[in-house]
């Protein structure tokens, strides 16, 4: 037995689903679609290559991403979503089912009719009732007639039959996160007055007919239904948790084989799966489902990224199967590492939701932590032994530098990393220590680099600044130099402002190297400025004002996290002056000018510059005649963010 399996005996114990033996208690959940496919629903080679990687993750059950079941595309939520409304889609579906089976897993096909969030290629979406959107991304509603409801049930049954013909052993229908099934179940979106609306019994009718239709179409194959344990829509008139569980009971009563407990809707006014939700937070919902329905299999995994926690949950009867998706996108070897007792090497999902937020920009999903995701079919993204082994020096132990160093070392290069700081992590470390969401997530990235660098034998020389003199001292010792020194703040940006020299450097403050007073003015309302403002306010009780020259704050923040900063700013009472610039910095405050040219004085003990990130271009000019190959990655090239730093570092590492 592998050492990790002995430590996680409940997670790795075999199970059963319908007539199928399952090798462990892990279900790969189709939590989001990839957008890798053709516009008309055909699976591409890119998708097949990705699914081949998923097939090898070691999960006992693997759910293929949601396919829309109707020819009009009313159920289609995503730009390049897979379809399953016709036999013409069978050949590629067959390949995926076969790839999953070849790895000893049970393949399940998810059928995803997006309802309220569907009709992406149409001018409308279909719903039980005329309830307009609250997110203007989605299409205006068209109410389903009873005939259309019957057609829809038939389409689901046909899709299930087709999935089984393709080789899938079971099917899944999903209400997560606010799709058609949820729209019928919910009081918020179902305001019908016929037998499909009104009472909870009536609202659940569509679900019961759906389950019954699919079960009749595929009686030998088990069916999973993904149902909300909490919609988080109750404040808008949606279902309470009690109603959610009553709907689960209805599903159980009509013979569903497994319930996947989920949380939240796309438009829910609060977080469900983001980084600000602590792991394990929603487990009580699954525990309630398991307690209420002991004879029905329950699977769960929302914001539960840790296999050790999952093992405890299986042991304690919180669920039967750990449903995991995003952690396997971040590290497809997660389960193997768990089995081999190498969890310290896992590249953890940090809950940035980069994957999901890109889908609503009609882009293929990517992973902040896994640069190879979606590029599995491209040889250029494979970590292969280097033809020529080189001595590589990497300047900077931030994410870009460490990613490059680790990838290069895996390929056989001899890598040395230099950093002027006393620890690995670069500016990510500073962000992590000031992060109000969950510092542990960002710090896990740093910890991952420390562990893997050590295991790969990468020589990391901390407290070592690389400058021209140093470079001359190591001349001809390295074949390659990678500048990954990160960004600094352009301190000349405010040279024209009287007293600008009084301002502290925001990065220095973030690293804990600058003392701030009680009243703080932060110049720059981007990622750095807001993170600092929130941290100073929350942890030091400072009164903070943010000055932003743009019309809005959070300009450089990822779309999936903008709302979080906006929310913190409001909760913490941070004052933001937008379309404003500083005019003068004095000993007791700053003068600020707004877009109308009006000037005001803000009393402040400390003024912090948090904008003007600038790349490390001078190092390129200094070093270009000192080494054979000179490259740059991450913020040292163009200041952006964590994802781009990791992507840059990896892409360079695989081609050195």
């Amino acid at each position, binding site marked *: 037995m592998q050492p990790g399996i002995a430590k996680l005996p409940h997670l790795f114990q075999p199970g059963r689903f319908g007539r199928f033996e399952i090798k462990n208690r892990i279900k790969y959940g189709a939590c989001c679609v990839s957008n890798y496919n053709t516009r008309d629903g055909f699976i591409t080679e890119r998708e097949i290559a990705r699914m081949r990687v998923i097939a090898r993750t070691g999960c006992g059950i693997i759910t293929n991403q949601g396919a829309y079941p109707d020819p009009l595309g009313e159920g289609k939520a995503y730009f390049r979503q897979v379809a399953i409304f016709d036999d013409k889609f069978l050949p590629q579906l067959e390949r995926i089912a076969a790839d999953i089976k070849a790895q000893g897993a049970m393949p399940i096909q998810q059928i995803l009719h997006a309802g309220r969030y569907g009709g992406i290629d149409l001018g409308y979406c279909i719903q039980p009732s*005329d*309830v*307009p*959107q*609250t*997110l*203007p*991304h*989605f*299409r*205006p509603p068209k109410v389903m007639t009873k005939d259309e409801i019957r057609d829809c049930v038939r389409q689901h049954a046909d899709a299930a039959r087709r999935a089984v013909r393709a080789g899938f052993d079971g099917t899944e229908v999903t209400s997560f*996160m606010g799709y058609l099934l949820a729209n019928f179940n919910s009081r918020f979106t179902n305001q019908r007055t016929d037998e499909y609306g009104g009472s909870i019994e009536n609202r659940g009718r569509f679900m019961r007919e759906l389950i019954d239709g699919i079960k009749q179409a595929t009686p030998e194959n088990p069916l999973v239904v993904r149902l909300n344990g909490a919609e988080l829509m109750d*404040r*808008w*008139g949606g279902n309470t948790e009690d109603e959610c569980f009553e709907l689960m009971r209805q599903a159980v009563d009509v013979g569903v084989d497994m319930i996947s407990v989920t949380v*939240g809707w*796309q*438009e*829910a*006014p*609060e*977080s*469900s*799966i*983001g980084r600000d939700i602590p792991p394990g937070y929603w487990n009580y919902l699954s525990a309630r489902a398991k307690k209420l329905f002991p004879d029905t299999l329950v699977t769960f995994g929302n914001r539960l990224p840790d296999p050790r926690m999952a093992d405890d949950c299986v042991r304690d009867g919180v669920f039967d199967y750990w449903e995991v998706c995003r952690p396997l996108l971040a590290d497809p070897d997660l389960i193997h590492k768990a089995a081999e007792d190498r969890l310290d090497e896992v590249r953890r999902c940090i809950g940035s*939701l980069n994957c*999901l*937020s890109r*889908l*609503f920009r009609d882009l293929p999903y990517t992973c902040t932590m896994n640069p190879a995701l979606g590029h599995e079919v491209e040889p250029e993204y494979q970590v292969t032994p280097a033809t020529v082994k080189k001595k590589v020096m990497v300047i900077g132990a931030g994410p870009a530098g460490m990613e490059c160093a680790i990838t290069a070392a895996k390929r056989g290069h001899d890598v040395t990393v230099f950093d002027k700081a006393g620890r690995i992590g670069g500016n990510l470390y500073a962000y992590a220590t000031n992060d109000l969401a969950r510092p542990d997530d960002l710090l896990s990235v740093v910890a991952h680099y420390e562990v893997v660098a050590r295991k790969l034998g990468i020589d990391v020389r901390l407290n070592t600044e690389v400058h021209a003199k140093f470079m001359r001292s190591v001349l001809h010792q390295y074949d390659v130099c990678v500048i990954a020194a990160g960004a600094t703040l352009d301190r000349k940006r405010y040279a024209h402002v009287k007293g600008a020299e009084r301002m502290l450097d925001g990065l220095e403050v973030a690293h804990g190297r600058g003392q701030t007073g009680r009243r703080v003015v932060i110049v720059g309302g981007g990622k750095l400025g807001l993170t600092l403002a929130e941290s100073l306010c929350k942890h030091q009780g400072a009164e903070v004002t943010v000055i932003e020259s743009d019309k*809005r704050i*959070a300009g450089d923040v990822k*779309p*999936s996290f*903008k*709302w*979080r900063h*906006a*929310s913190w700013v*409001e909760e913490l009472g941070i004052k933001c002056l937008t379309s404003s610039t500083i005019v003068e910095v004095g000993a007791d405050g700053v003068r600020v000018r707004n877009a109308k040219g009006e000037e005001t004085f803000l009393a402040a003990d400390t003024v912090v510059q948090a904008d003007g990130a600038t790349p490390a271009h001078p190092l390129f000019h200094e070093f270009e005649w000192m080494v054979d190959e000179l490259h740059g990655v991450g913020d040292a090239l163009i200041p952006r963010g964590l994802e781009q730093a990791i992507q840059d570092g990896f892409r360079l590492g695989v081609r050195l």
Partner: protein
Amino acid sequence: MTPLTAAATPDRRPTHGSRVGLLPSVESWLAAASHHGELFAQLDTGVRIALLARAAPERMLVWEAGHAGVDARIEPFAGYAASAADMVLAADDASLAELRSAAAGRLFEVLRAGIRSGRIVCYTLRRRCVLEERGLDELLDALGYAFMGACR
């Protein structure tokens, strides 16, 4: 550009009925639009923003941008699609009370807080790109659309 006007329009009706009494007055709604003129300045002619009582949506209080400026009026509510509104704010009774007292001052602060807390549901009847084309960009921002967004 849409200039603001407080001129009465023939179809403006008095507030009456059990629920409609909870809506702010037409006059205060006009004054609010005037007070926050910068949010309404770019609205295309014909843009309509409706407020109604969530518990009994019989009447709606509408801001409508016209050639002569932003007008306010009470109209019957015959369903979302029939409302011809770009956005509909459906508020609970407590929020309506707050809106009535805030109409002259911190109206958008109250609206934003109500939307965030879930006490006001902000329905958008057009896609974001259309809303922005119709000049609702600033208004969306004032209503706290940075708080909105899929996948959290």
